[in-house]
């Protein structure tokens, strides 16, 4: 079996969440690489959206530090403003989007704004960017975080980007459809369960166990009845990833 890093596994797990032909808010780093892998494997017609005002079919092949770098502009499907691209969320056209976060809670709410009281925070984080818009208006939200009790918390101090709020019908009552479909961590995949939408342990990455994951989760983590081990990268998936990640940044 091929050798791979945990980050490579996360990228490939993220790529598997993208279906062919979907419109996806891609963001930077890990998700943009996942988008590239999806295009090269099972989703050749996926389309990548970037908040700067960029839409791409093929991911840029040169190194990007940010979404707005010249290689992401050249050869794009569309370069325009933030509004025409982000409004596609509100138009109901966007299938999925990736975001990260400093904190995520048992109902998939994400905080990237304030640790502590927002009036006098203990830590002032950079803020929301477009994450609340992607969280509120894409059909599915994929969140990527490292797995530890500081990040996976019982309740976030501030809901920057709404997940299922207090669970149950709370999200629908707030006027939102969609919601988080997966949380991808370095240890596992969590998915919302049943009508309550609490995040349950759905897939354990190879080499980790339930106890370790529970210990590193800030709430009483439930196991999904159809919990699996995360399938390791296939040869094709790894080959696609290595085509993109020529310099082995993620290895």
């Amino acid at each position, binding site marked *: 079996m091929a050798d791979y890093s945990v980050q490579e596994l996360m990228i490939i797990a993220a790529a598997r969440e993208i279906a062919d032909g979907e419109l996806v808010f891609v963001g930077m780093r890990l998700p943009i690489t996942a988008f590239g892998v999806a295009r090269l494997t099972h989703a050749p017609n996926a389309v990548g959206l970037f908040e700067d005002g960029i839409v791409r079919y093929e991911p840029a092949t040169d190194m990007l530090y940010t979404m707005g770098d010249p290689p992401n502009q050249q050869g794009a499907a569309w370069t325009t403003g933030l*509004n025409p691209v982000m409004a596609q969320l509100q138009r109901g056209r966007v299938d999925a989007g990736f975001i990260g976060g400093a904190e995520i809670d048992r109902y998939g709410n994400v905080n990237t704004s304030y640790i502590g009281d927002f009036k006098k925070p203990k830590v002032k984080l950079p803020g929301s960017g477009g994450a609340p818009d992607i969280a509120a*208006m894409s059909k599915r939200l994929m969140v990527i975080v490292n797995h530890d009790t500081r990040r996976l918390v019982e309740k976030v101090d501030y809901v920057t980007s709404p997940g299922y709020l207090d669970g149950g019908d709370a999200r629908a009552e707030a006027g939102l459809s969609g919601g988080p479909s997966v949380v991808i961590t370095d240890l596992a995949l969590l998915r919302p369960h049943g009508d309550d939408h609490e995040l349950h342990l759905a897939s354990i990455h190879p080499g980790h166990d339930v106890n370790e994951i529970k210990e590193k989760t800030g709430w009483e983590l439930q196991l999904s009845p159809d919990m699996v081990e995360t399938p390791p990268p296939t040869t094709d998936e790894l080959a696609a990833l290595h085509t993109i990640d020529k310099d082995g940044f993620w290895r």
Partner: protein
Amino acid sequence: MQEKLVDLKTAIASHVRDGDSVVLGACLEPEIPFAATHELIRQGRRGLNMIAPISDASTDMLIGAGCVSEVTGAWVGNVSGGLGHNYRRAFEEGDAPTIRVNDYSNFSLGMALLAGAYGMPYLPVRSILGSDILKSNSALKLAKNPFGDENEPIVLVPPLQPDVAIISVQRADRYGNNHHWGSSGLIAEAAAAAEIVILIAEEIVAPTVISSDPSRVLVPGYLVTAVTQVSAAVHPSPMTGYWRRDNQFFNDYHARSRTQEGFESWLREWVLDIEDHGAYCEKLGASIAALRIKGEAFSAPANYASV
């Protein structure tokens, strides 16, 4: 047509006052006129309300230099490095935050500037629902959709019309007519919404260059107050077709601004002890030359002939 070409010092001195609301950049990561950021700092402007979804590290620099009393936007940090240390210090040190933040998401800020640009009374959005942004920014109102089901909630975003928008474009003529290409973030909306528009052009070209392609105009010259030519004004941010990103410079700023003393030394070295943007580029030396895009990948021509 009215001649609008001035130098950067004059443009800033003449058109940005203490207490103004200012859009500087608003392209998120690319094409942020850092030369104007530095000039605002050198001229000691105070009490500014910086409006932008994201203007990379520019807002953090202005906060650290004491120019800012208010931030209206979605994100303040350093896209390469992460956190904005001056932004953090403004909140985390002392008994109370020294600046006020009006929290928006990128899209709701986009709608606020669109509403300002188009003179709309406000704009209703389906975002922000469920977010605590509704709690921390009281300018946004929760409401019901009068065209929807009985209880369909929406959020009403009031318009923003900045006092000044300072915007980078690839080229302009001396009357303020201009071309921009590549992603534009919210600069078109910001320019149309603002009372005063200061354009920072990489190149000044003949009016016939601009009028050869009126569909590429970002904002027509009659809405521009002043235009100034500053090559590499966007450094360390990139500009489509002209400049690559200086990622190392952002990382260095991030590392040095981690402490107040470190930031102050950075500020002296790169802003306060520097006369103008020409001297800044000289100090960058070979590194700026290496960032210049030398390739050619030209747009297919569009014919505007009428006969």
